């Protein structure tokens, strides 16, 4: 049983390392204009020897684009998730630890954000701040924050009732210290696992935002943008969706497999 889990984790780590490597090394080794170079004679070419993964509607090489897109996509996803954690963590922590009216007020706020359509949020950010990568990150980060805050609150609530928290209080530890030293480390695994799952959603969220003009601005490549661009040509050039889709799928798979292992790594019991 356990061995199975290790293999799974190993696959996850290998996958993620590979993807991270591609994201970092890719832009260094492939020619700088390879991902935007257009071949008007080979538009929507299915995979061939010259274009291993085919080309898109402007005759750009899908392989190069998917490699260059890795970096943008991961950058956006990681930054957005980090942002939502940075915002959601204090919110959820304080809410879950103190409970009572603090919890009530904060959770009403979170409910409001949850019920507020992400689309309206994205449109406002795009219109007011302008469409670019930073603002895409803000849009995704803000949209994810209430979900994270809710999950963190739940975890913090559980941990706050543990005897070791009471023990810390009995030994004169201040609330701030209890949150930092006792609650935070104990909810971290759940936060990190949730964050890995959110990463997958963030990559796809960018695809949705590209439809509204937010997201990576062309001709730069990102998986989300590529998937979005495939929308009108799925029936004639399915590879334009499948190539970035597979990249996302592999990343998500890797993240999930890795997530399980990460939980174990974070657990001091495994040390």
């Amino acid at each position, binding site marked *: 049983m356990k061995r199975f889990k290790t293999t799974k984790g190993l696959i996850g780590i290998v996958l993620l390392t590979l993807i991270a490597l591609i994201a970092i090394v890719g832009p260094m080794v492939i020619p700088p204009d390879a991902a935007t170079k257009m071949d008007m004679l080979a538009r929507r070419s299915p995979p061939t020897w010259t274009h291993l993964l085919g080309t898109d509607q402007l005759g750009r090489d899908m392989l190069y684009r998917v490699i260059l897109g890795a970096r943008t996509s991961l950058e956006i996803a990681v930054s957005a998730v980090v942002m939502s954690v940075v915002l959601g963590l204090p919110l959820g922590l304080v809410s879950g630890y103190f409970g009572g009216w603090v919890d009530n007020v904060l959770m009403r706020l979170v*409910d409001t954000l949850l*019920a*507020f*359509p992400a*689309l*309206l*949020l994205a449109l406002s950010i795009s219109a007011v701040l302008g469409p670019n990568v930073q603002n895409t990150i803000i849009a995704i980060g803000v949209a994810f924050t209430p979900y994270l805050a809710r999950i963190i609150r739940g975890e913090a609530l559980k941990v706050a009732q543990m005897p070791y928290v009471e023990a810390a209080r009995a030994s004169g530890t201040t609330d701030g210290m209890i949150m930092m030293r006792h609650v935070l480390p104990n909810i971290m695994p759940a936060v990190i696992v949730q964050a890995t799952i959110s990463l997958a959603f963030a990559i*796809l969220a960018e695809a949705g935002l590209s439809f509204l003009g937010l997201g990576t601005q062309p001709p730069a490549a990102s998986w989300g943008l590529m998937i979005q661009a495939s929308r009108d040509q799925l029936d004639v050039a399915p590879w334009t969706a499948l190539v970035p*889709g597979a990249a996302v799928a592999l990343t998500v798979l890797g993240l*999930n497999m890795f997530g399980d292992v990460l939980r174990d790594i974070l657990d001091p019991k495994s040390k």
Partner: protein
Amino acid sequence: MTYVLNRLLSVILTLFLITLVTFAVTNILPGDVAMMIMGTQSNPEALEGLRQSLGLNDPLIMQYGNWVGGLLTGDWGTSLIFKKPIAELLAQKAVASAIIVVMSMTIALTLAVPLGVWAAVHRDRWQDTVSSSTSLLGVSLPDFFWGIVMILVFARWLGWFPSSGIVEPSEDFLGSLRYAFLPSLALGLGLMAHLTRMTRSTMTGILGQEFIRVARAKGLTERTVVWRYALANAIGPVITIAGLQIGYLFGSIIVMESLFGYTGMGWLTYQALLNRDLPLIQATVFVIAAVVMITNLLVDLLYVLIDPRVKLG
């Protein structure tokens, strides 16, 4: 009963906050519906005239007051782009969306629960991997991808379902379900992933509990133990998660309804937003938020029916 009232009170409070936020955000958005109506025919005087006739020049406080007042008195105003009473539009589109929301949730649960149970029973074995990989694949590609795949497979190649459109359930109920099926299926696949995971983890927890061992010790077959004893306990948490997914679902239907020309609440919201039709934006956002929160309330009440331990205090 007091519990329900209590929850309703918090729903009302949140809805009030939502009216404030929505109103603020929609007014920050640059551009207005007059500009959208005139498009590239607009010149400053023409725009001003149209704004005047649409009542866009009233002070903000007055607009907000009128809106909230209207919400309470049942006068929801008129859509500026469709020139139809908003209440009438909402009534029609809400029914359409209700059909795909219910249908997609049904599809998702029908697929996710067995898959999740199967994975939990064979935890950490190949069945588990198959189940989680399948559900992960579902979330690795966006909704519209699955939507188009559905159109191509079931409408174009197999010809089993119409590729797009919508039928009023009052005219032809079965027909309306036929039109709703493909968008629901595509939405259901997206929802499935999360529900499968939740079913699996809930079931895993329950299968490790003492009463399961007791049931086995009674000599009950494994099928009874898993599908009756364990599942009866898992269904509550799973339904709760499903309820929370309703919010996510209302985000997804925007894309899916536009894709399938299945014009429900999601499509209406999208049109309102794109055209800066403020009264319609405010109404749709408000209604969706209300539906999401009331659904969650209903799910919690349903939980009470499912789980005898939970009492309304």
